[in-house]
């Protein structure tokens, strides 16, 4: 296989990898807020169930979770899983990352001093004004480095989709490498992941810099 053909074949895998990446972020960043709210709920039952769920998600390998999300419907409910590969994959990624983000959000919010809430309360801000105008912007800045870490991990984690034989860049690299007895596909995949991570790190750094105007 020529280098050009190889690159072209892998190109479709790269697009799929990028797809997993963005869909996971779009799903998990907001879902994390929901999980964080349940995790900090005043209802003790809701709170402990959420806490246990987060513990399970964070305490088991993502690869295993992907298999469970994919094959679960079949083994548990005897449902057909035709066409379920991609949705199952994305749900697995989104839920996993949402739990990590939820804990990051919670840590950020808990690190805010009560003084900020009290100052806002005395000035007459409503609860939602306090959250969105005073608390959230500060929390966002504080948690940005942790979010960056997760996002960079996600770039690499997308390769776990190969467990479900989803044709993202890593799966394709493996296939081509086996059929062509060539090491080149892995090299290309490696360069791709590296560049993707570099882009993410660069973007996040720009945001962090833009928020440097206060401490």
């Amino acid at each position: 296989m020529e280098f050009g053909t190889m690159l072209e074949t892998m190109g479709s895998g790269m697009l799929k990898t990028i797809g997993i990446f963005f869909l996971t972020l779009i799903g998990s960043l907001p879902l994390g807020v929901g999980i964080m709210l349940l995790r900090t709920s005043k209802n003790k039952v809701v709170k402990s169930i959420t806490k246990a769920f987060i513990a399970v998600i964070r305490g088991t390998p993502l690869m295993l979770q992907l298999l469970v999300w994919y094959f679960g419907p079949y083994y548990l409910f005897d449902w057909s899983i035709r066409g379920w590969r991609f949705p199952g994959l994305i749900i697995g990624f989104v839920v996993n990352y949402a739990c990590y983000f939820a804990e990051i959000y919670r840590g950020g919010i808990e690190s805010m001093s009560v003084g900020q809430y009290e100052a806002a309360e005395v000035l007459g801000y409503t609860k939602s004004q306090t959250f969105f105008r005073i608390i959230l912007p500060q929390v966002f800045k504080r948690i940005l480095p942790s979010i960056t870490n997760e996002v960079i991990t996600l770039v690499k984690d997308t390769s776990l989709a190969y467990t479900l034989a989803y044709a993202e860049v890593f799966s394709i690299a493996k296939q081509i490498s086996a059929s062509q007895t060539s090491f080149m596909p892995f090299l290309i995949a490696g360069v791709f992941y590296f560049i993707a991570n570099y882009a993410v790190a660069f973007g996040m750094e720009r945001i962090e810099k833009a928020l440097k105007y206060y401490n």
Partner: protein
Amino acid sequence: MILEMKNIRKSFPASAGGTNEVLRDISLSVDKGEVVSIIGPSGSGKSTLLRCATFLETIDGGSITYMDTVAASTDANGRVSYISKNEMKTVKGYFGLVFQQFNLFPHFSVLKNITDAPVKVHGRNAEEVKAEAMELLAAMGLGDKADAYPCQLSGGQQQRVAIARALAMKPEILFFDEPTSALDPELTIEVLKIIRKLAEEHMTMVIVTHEMNFARAVSNRVIFMDGGVIVEQGDPEEVFGNPRQERTRQFLRSYEQ
């Protein structure tokens, strides 16, 4: 009468179990233009009293009235009730609070710290509020700091911004909880100067402070609190110069080196 607190009681759960009675039947009323200083040993309940007055803590008994609005009251069965959230909005406009730790909003510029609440809470015209804020900053000696961020200011400057932020809401009464305790002596002076200026302009104020000379100089009335009760109150010259209670004398003695 701007503020009337009657028979206020407040307890906290004690760490060893049971309850810790922090305010025991305290009454305090403040007239328009009055400057009241509250002094007393650590743990006597001074902050708790201010926090009850500003609704950061809920009372366990008694009543709180601002202007003519009874904001909190206790019925014959001893049940405390507060007015609705909506009615509370008006009452919250009557007072401001300056914290020991300033509690400025670090992500807002100095100007925005002052203008944000009048615009977003009171819904006032942004240009008008900005003009007033610039005047307030000038009066605080911070005319050139409008675009700075709190982290770029000294503690004394931050506290003056916090005072401006409170004043921008045009409160009827301003509470201070140890406004200079987090400051070095040189910075303390510049903040006390501002408060003194406000006193001369007959701003109604209640000031919790450990600055005895300052309390003596600016206030119309001094309250000495200990163990959750008002032990003695009156004209500053009398309370400082000729205290009637032995506990007051002991406390004041601890301030002479």
